[in-house]
């Protein structure tokens, strides 16, 4: 009992030490991580950050500039911009994280599968991926939004479809190089089935590059959500979304600039945090760059 406790403590210490190294070696990454945590907490605990509802209409309060009552001002229906800012992070994070998660899981599984199976199946899957990859991701997302119509779920799907071929390619090439490795051959010799090899041997070794890449894509996914919403093809109202809030208030910029500035800042903040985090992840996981 005592021993295991000590072990735990030792492990804890080690983790803290590692965290310390991270702070020291990756100051920009730390900055990103902190920013990301802020955005994350805004999304998870929105009611703690603001008491007002982001959708409450209040005609007497239209276009109030930032003040102690309305921190970020109010919009054309008298809604509190600060609460829309806070709740907007929810949409951004929900869409960004779930779409990347979806893309990663689907792309990862299909990548490992097609990398290991090889042959005609792989050939066909990869030609479809070629077709999807050749299109700029945002155009693909626009096309899918046009096909599916606007909703939160569809936005997640559209962004996931746009980025999943990229993740598929990455895991496939990792899987192919792993397929040739001696430990996979050892597993074959040990009698492992293809499914066992995929799950126990190939998949775990794809995780590091996969994680790095997924983090790197996260910022892009936030941006994609904002862009789609900006174009009026993303999440539908009245759900607060930075991109749509921005585009709907373009005409009001001249006398209510806060309506354009804060949503834009929100997008930048989220993407900025994710990019810094991704950058540091790459520095940590990519031994070649680490050496350099």
């Amino acid at each position, binding site marked *: 009992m005592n021993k295991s406790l000590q072990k735990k403590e030792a492990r804890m210490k080690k983790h803290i030490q590692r965290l310390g190294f991270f702070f020291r070696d990756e100051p920009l990454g730390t900055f990103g991580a902190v920013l990301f945590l802020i955005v994350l907490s805004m999304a998870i605990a929105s009611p703690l950050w603001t008491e007002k509802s982001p959708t409450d209409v209040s005609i007497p309060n239209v276009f109030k500039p930032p003040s102690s009552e309305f921190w970020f001002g109010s919009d054309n229906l008298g809604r509190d911009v600060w609460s829309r800012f806070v709740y907007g992070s929810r949409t951004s994070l929900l869409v960004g994280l779930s779409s990347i998660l979806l893309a990663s899981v689907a792309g990862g599984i299909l990548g490992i599968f097609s990398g290991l199976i090889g042959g005609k199946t792989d050939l066909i899957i990869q030609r479809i991926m070629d077709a999807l990859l050749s299109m700029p991701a945002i155009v693909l997302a626009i096309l899918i939004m046009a096909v599916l119509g606007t909703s939160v779920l569809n936005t997640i799907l559209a962004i996931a479809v746009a980025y999943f071929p990229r993740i598929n390619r990455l895991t496939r090439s990792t899987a192919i190089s792993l397929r040739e490795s001696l430990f996979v051959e050892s597993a074959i010799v040990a009698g492992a089935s293809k499914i066992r090899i995929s799950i126990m041997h190939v998949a775990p070794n794809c995780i590091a590059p996969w994680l790095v890449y997924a983090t790197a894509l996260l910022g892009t996914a936030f941006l994609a959500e904002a862009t789609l919403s900006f174009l009026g093809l993303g999440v539908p109202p009245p759900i607060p979304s930075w991109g749509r809030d921005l585009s709907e208030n373009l*005409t009001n910029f001249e006398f209510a600039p806060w309506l354009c500035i804060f949503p834009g800042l929100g997008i930048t903040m989220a993407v900025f945090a994710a990019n810094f985090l991704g950058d540091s992840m790459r520095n940590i996981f990519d031994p070649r760059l680490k050496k350099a």
Partner: protein
Amino acid sequence: MEKKSMLKIIMVLGVIACMTAVSPVLAADPQGLVRGGVLRLASASDAANYDSHMTTSGRTHSHTCAVFNGLVRTDPLKKEVSAENIVPDLAERWEISSDGKTYTFYLRKNVKFHDGHPFTAKDVKYSLDKFRDPKRSAFAANVAPITNIGIIDDYTLKIQLEYAYPDLLIFLCPPYASIYPEHLKDVSFKSTDILVGTGPFKFKSKVPGKVSIYERNPDYFIKGLPYLDRYEVYSLKFPAAVDAFIGGRLDCGPSMRAYLDSDRALVLKVQKHAPEAVIGLEPSGASRGAFFSFVHKGPWNDVRVRKAMAMVIDYRDLAIASYGGLEVNPVVGAGLFPFYQKGAWTKEEVDKAYGRDQSMSERIAVAKDLMSQAGYANGFALEAIVRSDEAFRKNVMLYCADVWKKSLNIDLSVTPLERSIFFPRRDTGEFDVVNDVANTMTGSSAIEFLGTFVSGETRNYGKWSNKEYDDLFEKVAREQDPQKRAELSRQAQAIFYKEIPYIVFEGAVYGTAWRPDLMTGPVKDLVMQPVFTNYVSVDRIWFKGTAERWTKTK
């Protein structure tokens, strides 16, 4: 875009001096009139087709109005558009039989289409037959009383009616009832090849998605016109169009009708950055509001519920929500009829009918009482559908949702829908509430305003049906005496405001802006009409200045 978007451009193009059949206008030219120059307008996008019979869209009419003429046109000098203020266009003069059932038109001679073909009665018969065919025209219902169009000779035409129909001439005005060349009847209306008319400008070239260019027709039947050398229609969307206007690259308001009137921010932007620009805002014949569906069953089928819902809406707050959160436009306000119309209920009468003549707290108390009488004291839930491409509709419904929730505990969810999903649902009554326009064509006839809610009419989105109302409508259509007619239409309005199939939010306003040196004929000021049948005055427009970019460059 709402219904008559053509107006945007139109009003600008305003007016003309009196057009008598005989006197060419050139002689009346005042000193200092400048010839030449290019007029640059914006339209939201290219025209879907050049068939002005099929659409009320300015995307089409801004092109056809320069190329085609009508049989007659409205007098652009007079603010009121009515059957009495019609002037000749391709018809030199006309006669109406004493029973009002036969119209004889005498056409201009020596008029030629742009390709050199002479214009004759054949072309008129072909065009008007198309205009009254429900398959090939969106306005057939407006000219339904026509039973026959007969050619007497090349320059004489007789129209037979089933019954006396005083508004016929209004409906024969451009830009809707354009006269197309009969000899090109096999050419597709989608193709620019159809742009062969008798009008002041000839089609020159088109860059799809960008611009269509028209040049002066030297053989125009009014000698000396048009003044302009060229007429260009740019396809430019908001907000790029507003920026282009402010930058002096457009001469007249972009497709601002949908924006300038519903978004005060744009008016302020234009005023700030281009203070020299002239801004015109006029009420239109259309009104915006909420249709209740009578196809869908729900609490709103009970008139007391509808009355309660109409009652608690505050007109001023509603306008602020609709007009982009800024001060209310002074010219706004209408019922089913625009207030300038003969026989229209006044704003006070409408407010009284809706029960809005008391204080807000009293209204809420009465409305709550009505709700509990109907058995919905605890409220209910319903869904409003709105078009996703026009934010102000969503804003209005969000305001209503807020008011109805707070005062009547009605849960209104607002669903913005893509056009391709919205229109089919709207047209078939598949909604609880829809925010749309009570459409009219010319905005000048009681037949149009009342006709929107007649049983079986496509524009009657909620499929409301009331026998008494339908009967009154029939009477209005056949009544020759203007006084009696106004009285009958007031009675019909009484039923409408009592039954509330549609809560009128506001009268739509058309607004646009133009460069200050834009002139029309000998008249210095552009006369803005509340309707858009005076679209047609492109032939009289001229510039005092000729600078390509009219705004001051800093």
